């Protein structure tokens, strides 16, 4: 019975996050437009775009290999698998034992490598340029993510999402300076991973600045739909991850009754809306960085994460 409940929660979670991803991206775009004084398209516009792209036949370069056709599925599939693991409204889902922070980072890396390879497949200059930049930024974002995980692992004793969330809710960790640093590091990583301002501009096709868009310049039709959907899902995943780790309030505990799920669902929607608002406000207020300033930005995130861990060592050493 408990297993059936876990399975049901898992299925609900997956359906929820898969459906919410395009709407969330649309919401962020709409909020940004509003803040900039424009009317903005409806938040449902990304769904319509996806449906339109799916109807079109893809156009591939003459010398494109099977890589161009397979990698959209690999990248989107890896993100879907990662999204299935990050808890949203309830803990104790069927896949919860698998849900590990480092594994999610690995699955996202799988999606990233698939995208970089697809970008290099046609042999055009922009694809290679985007791939080189994307992999370089990831090389700096990864240590910041792992160092943030270090603080969490020390406090919670595990890198499992349920374990971290449970430790935050029940363990009485309270507010710690280290957590603030870890949050700052993770926020910077999230911005870099999702190609948001100030690292990359999701709305640009300006040749000199694009990173993410440069790799999928050759994609069209269903392939482009998959790339776009993977990007939307990645944004939803990261916001959900931040909510699950740092704002686990309202989450239904493992084996809870469905009415707690409803509560958790409401809390999750509120958290995601709040984070989307914060993201839109941040992106409206700040300018994009020059490409070679990004290492400083991510290096600062890494140092903040390290500082958080060191503070933790000192404080536990004194206590």
């Amino acid at each position, binding site marked *: 019975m408990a297993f059936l409940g876990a399975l049901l929660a898992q299925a609900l979670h997956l359906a929820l996050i898969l459906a919410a991803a395009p709407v969330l991206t649309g919401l962020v775009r709409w909020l940004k437009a509003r803040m900039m004084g424009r009317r903005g398209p409806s938040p449902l516009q990304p769904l319509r775009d996806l449906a339109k792209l799916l109807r079109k036949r893809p156009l591939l370069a003459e010398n494109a290999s099977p890589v161009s056709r397979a990698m959209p599925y690999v990248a989107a599939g890896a993100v879907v698998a990662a999204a299935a693991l990050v808890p949203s409204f309830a803990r104790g889902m069927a896949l919860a034992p*698998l849900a*590990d922070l480092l594994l999610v980072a690995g699955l996202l890396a799988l999606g*990233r490598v698939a995208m970089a390879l697809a970008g290099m*497949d046609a042999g055009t*200059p922009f694809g290679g340029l985007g791939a*080189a930049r994307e992999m370089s930024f990831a*090389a700096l974002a990864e*240590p910041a993510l792992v160092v943030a995980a270090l603080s969490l692992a020390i406090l919670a004793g595990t890198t499992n999402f349920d374990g971290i969330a449970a430790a935050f809710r029940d363990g009485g960790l309270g507010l710690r300076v280290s957590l603030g640093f870890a949050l700052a590091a993770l926020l910077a990583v999230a911005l870099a991973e999702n190609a948001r301002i100030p690292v990359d501009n999701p709305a640009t096709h300006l040749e000199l600045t694009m990173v993410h868009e440069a790799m999928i310049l050759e994609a069209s039709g269903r392939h482009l*739909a998959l790339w776009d959907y993977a990007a939307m899902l990645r944004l939803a995943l990261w916001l959900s991850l931040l909510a699950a780790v740092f704002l686990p309030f309202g989450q239904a505990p493992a084996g809870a009754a469905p009415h707690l799920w409803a509560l958790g669902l409401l809390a999750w929607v509120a958290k995601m809306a709040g984070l989307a608002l914060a993201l839109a406000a941040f992106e409206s207020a700040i300018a994009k960085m020059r490409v070679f300033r990004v290492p400083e930005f991510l290096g600062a995130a890494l140092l903040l994460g390290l500082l958080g861990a060191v503070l933790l060592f000192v404080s536990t050493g004194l206590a």
Partner: protein
Amino acid sequence: MLTLLALLAVLLLALGAAAPLLARRAGRARAAFGATAAAGLLIAAAGLAGLLGGPAALDLPLGPPWGPMRLALDGLSAWFLLPLGLVSAAASLFALGGVRAPMAPRRLLPWPAFLAGMLLTVLAADGFTLLLGFEAMSLASWALVAHEHAAAENRRAGRIYLGFAGFGGLCLVLALGLSAGGAGDVAFAALREAPPEGWRAAAVLGLVLAGAGSKAGLFPLHVWLPLAHPAAPSHVSAAMSGAMTKVALYVLARFLFDLMGPAQPFWLGAPLIALGAASAVIGALRANLEEDSKTLLACSTIENVGLIAIGLGLALAFRGADLPALAALAAGAALLHVLNHAMFKTLLFLAAGEVLHGALSRRLDRLGGLIHRMPWTAWAALVGVAAAASLPPLSGFASEWLLLQALLAAWRVGDLAFQIGVAAATALAALAAALAAAAMVRFWGLVFLGRPRSPRAAGAEESGGAARLALLLPAGLTVLLGLAPGVMLALAAPALRLMAGAAAPSAGGLVVGAAEGGARYWPLPVALLAAAAIGGLWWLVRRRAPAGVARGPAWDCGFIAPPAHLPFGDPATQPSAAGFAQPLRRMLGESLLAAQEHVAMPPPGATAPAVLRAGFADPALAALEGPLPRWREALASRAERLRDLSIRQNLGLTFAAVVLLLALLAALEAG
């Protein structure tokens, strides 16, 4: 079992001795490589049997005057027989596929001797046998590195390699002597009886790190590796990167975990962690900047050896701090990575060899688009690339996940300085792993994707048969090892008990876990989940979207049409190896590797092309090549003076030396 292995080593040596006869006909040379492939499989099977059965020991009826040569097979050596055997088998198969005509004996002769040397090193149970095997391995591999001595760069590689091999052997002799102490018995059993303490332990650690570490490619003694590994034939490169560095790590582990005894302080692991982290980052960064496929892979070997060294150092620290479960976790991560890296690096080197054979170049700037001409090689190499980039669910991710979990738990050792250092090492290990992913994308993308960059690459041919089998064997094992790390850790239990005093925590068929109650990694369910997600997406998209694709020319950003002699487009409109490396060269290379770039832009209106010159200098090589030759010159000119001494002075010198040695002996006896 041991008798069989000893016989196998003798047979390999005999095969080497018969090489001048065997190399004369292509068929016989093929048979010789077939025999070494079979020997490799036998060695791996013996390792498996050694892990499942108990330890064994054997005294050979020959040896130096002071005692017999001793062999032993315990958990640790049995584990290292696995990569040794499997790598030998795959590399020999590849060499077999490459034999087309009678070959020079100097290409065949050292190969069985190289394998026998590695086998002897792993099986040795006394210092003499260990050194004999180690030196045979060094010498035979040197002969293989220098086999194409017509090229000046190969001669340079061979010279530097020989220097490092001599230095490493010397350090190991001194380490053995220091461990043996006054008694002078170098049998491992005797060494275990009297483990070194205090300054002696620190000195042995330093000497072993210099001796075995230089052979394994640990920073700052790694500089020979990117020179020597690519100079050898591809199957030898694979064996040097896949197996020889592992044998060196085995010697390191044998000294630090077994011969120095369990009662060592935790800080003994710190230098290993620091050097490992430095090697990992420098190796991974260099792999991103190199423009030669095999040099790139050799640099990636430095990175992986660094990661393994971090694991070994953590295990040493945990054991010293009396945390056996965590020590088993770290040691398990290191051992698993030994096997995983041996497999995927062999695969990648053999794929690079296949590319060299098919497209006649190792330079990334002369390859490209090979996925169309060499599909088997390309897809097999993709498995290796994904494992080297530590992507789930392949083998590299499993061992690096375990290593990161060990690093995340390292704060439990308790010392504040150690905790801060390990936090930095955690960041460096993650940086190295992500840099490795970037390097692997660059390698695979530039070689196999895009358009051909040279006519040779456009007309590349793939060879089938044994060479293809040699690629598929490590590729299949990379997938299997990625799905079943729990099985492998359970298999490694004897080695882990020897190293850490405990078995790996919660290692079962499907799962590997950090500590009790900690995070777990389930590779098979994760693979199934990812496969289900990909399959589900494919099914959904297929239902909605029209089938098939249309083809059109790639948009090349408005470049003018290529001239008629470039049917595959102008290679200059594709990313080049130096261009792809540009972001990392600017972000990290300038500060860590003194990288420079210089763009020569012609004045407006001139028709000369713009030229980008990019380069870097490994600081370790610069430090070595600067003062060392000066010292050698100074020493040589001093030594020259001895030749002018009169006979009286010569006799006096000899007498003084004898008196000095006697005095030393007397002092040692008294002490």
